[in-house]
């Protein structure tokens, strides 16, 4: 049984057309996924639907055999799925430590919060160094680390990352990717949307190609990387630019 199932979901914004058009996808525990596809394919929309930010127009999201029927984002989070959006979204006027503390907003046991914070500080020593600095004054890469650290504070089963390397210098992006690898090692199921498809697929176990609101192909990430058709249709640009953002 899949950990997370997206069944026949249609979704869109406001009165606009459907962005997701009957999309179905199964996510297995302990596997990492990289979702690729052209702009407008519905990658970010899919993550927003799963996280509860965008209620689907039809279809359902099922987690551990329980359907989320219009669950709010805080309820989705409480069940163990967290979402790190594209813009990193740290709280600019809160210190690093406060940003992390609020990451565990749903956890009431202070000793658990403390343990988790230590784990985050182990993973990201830079956050420990800057614990009292305001989130808004950190560099893009540090804010991304803070966003990842904050997501870890909830101790999630599934972590969804929307373009974690967006706007970061290649070297910093590399650092973020190796951190994501460490998160996988912690047993967290990663579902990632990545513009830098080659990098993302190298990192992930399973590749999912989205196009026009449905899953066009899926398979082991390395076979997707090697598939000449997919390379031509969806990876052409990324391969051409040598995998830099």
């Amino acid at each position: 049984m899949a950990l997370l199932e997206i069944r026949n979901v249609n979704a869109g914004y406001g009165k606009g057309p459907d962005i997701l058009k009957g999309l179905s996808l199964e996510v297995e525990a302990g596997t990492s996924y990289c979702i690729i596809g052209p702009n407008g394919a519905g990658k970010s929309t899919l993550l927003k639907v799963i996280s509860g930010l965008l209620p689907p127009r039809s279809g359902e999201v099922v987690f551990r055999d329980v359907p989320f029927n219009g669950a709010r984002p805080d309820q989705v989070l409480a069940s163990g799925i967290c979402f790190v959006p594209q813009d990193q979204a740290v709280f600019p006027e809160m210190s690093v430590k406060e940003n992390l503390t609020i990451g565990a907003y749903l956890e009431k046991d202070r000793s658990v919060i403390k343990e988790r914070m230590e784990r985050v500080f182990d993973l990201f020593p830079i956050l420990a160094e800057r614990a009292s600095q305001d989130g808004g004054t950190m560099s893009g890469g540090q804010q991304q680390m803070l966003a990842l650290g904050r997501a870890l504070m909830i101790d999630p089963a599934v972590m969804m990352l929307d373009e974690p390397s967006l706007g970061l210098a290649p070297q910093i992006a590399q650092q973020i990717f190796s951190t994501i690898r460490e998160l996988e090692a912690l047993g967290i199921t990663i579902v990632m949307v990545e513009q830098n498809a080659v990098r993302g697929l190298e990192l992930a176990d399973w590749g999912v190609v989205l196009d026009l609101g449905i899953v066009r192909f899926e398979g082991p990430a390395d076979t997707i990387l090697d598939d000449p058709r997919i390379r031509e249709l969806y990876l052409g640009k990324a391969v051409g630019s040598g995998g830099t953002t």
Partner: protein
Amino acid sequence: MTEILQVTIFGLLLGGVYALFASGLTLAFGVMRIVNLAHAVFIVAAAYATFFAFEELGIDPLVSIIWLVPLFFILGVGLYMTFFVRIEGSPRYVEMTVLLTFGIAIMIEGLLGWRFTGIYRQTQPSYLTDAYFWGDYIVPAGQLYAALLSLILLIALWLFLRFTRVGYGIRATMQNRDAAQLVGVNVRRVSAISFGISTAFAGAGGAFMSYLFPFFPFRHWQWIALLLALVVLGGMGSLKGAVAGALILGVASSLVVDQIGAGWGPMAFYAALFGILLVRPQGLFGKEAVA
């Protein structure tokens, strides 16, 4: 010199009460993006409640704060859940809040006018005319109590926002509503609580208004203009800004009244607002882009 300092003392006392009035308004905008044109009418309504509690039951205005705060908190939460939840997520949400609160303001004003008529009222507690003397300086007792209690309420709010779980949720929602949802803050609940706090502050403010500033139902329009000016000056949604703006404009208008003439007070107030906004369009503590 003595005179300037004396006037500054008056200005600070005035500014302390303004700060209480304005902080509730800025909280509603900061957390819920509600431009609450009814904030001042809540204060006036609370002033009426204080006035009649004093006249009929002999309850001191400052004591009335004890029941006004919980009462207005409950009213605020009720109003939020009844009206504002319906317009959540509307594409013109902020504009809708302006219309909605405008309507609420007119309705409450009408009810107050119908029930209590349009005559001026002022509670007359014994300390209204008392004063403390500090060297050469006069500190009016009623204003001092109001400013000190306002300060205590503002500090309590600050501690609440800083150190409680709900407080964290409120601050997170003010800084980034989407991210707050993503860390598990139930923004609707937090919004209802914040609106309750905002109206609770209006309730406490009404106790002070009842004896410091003579009132009648229509008066609230004058107040809301002044309070919006304070909030815009401080930066929409910034609590620090509202407090700083209130103190600055309180002192500035007192100085102008003293040095130039009473008629110039309100004008100086808005002139200072224009001046500051020319230099800092986002207000003293505002963020560059408030969506």
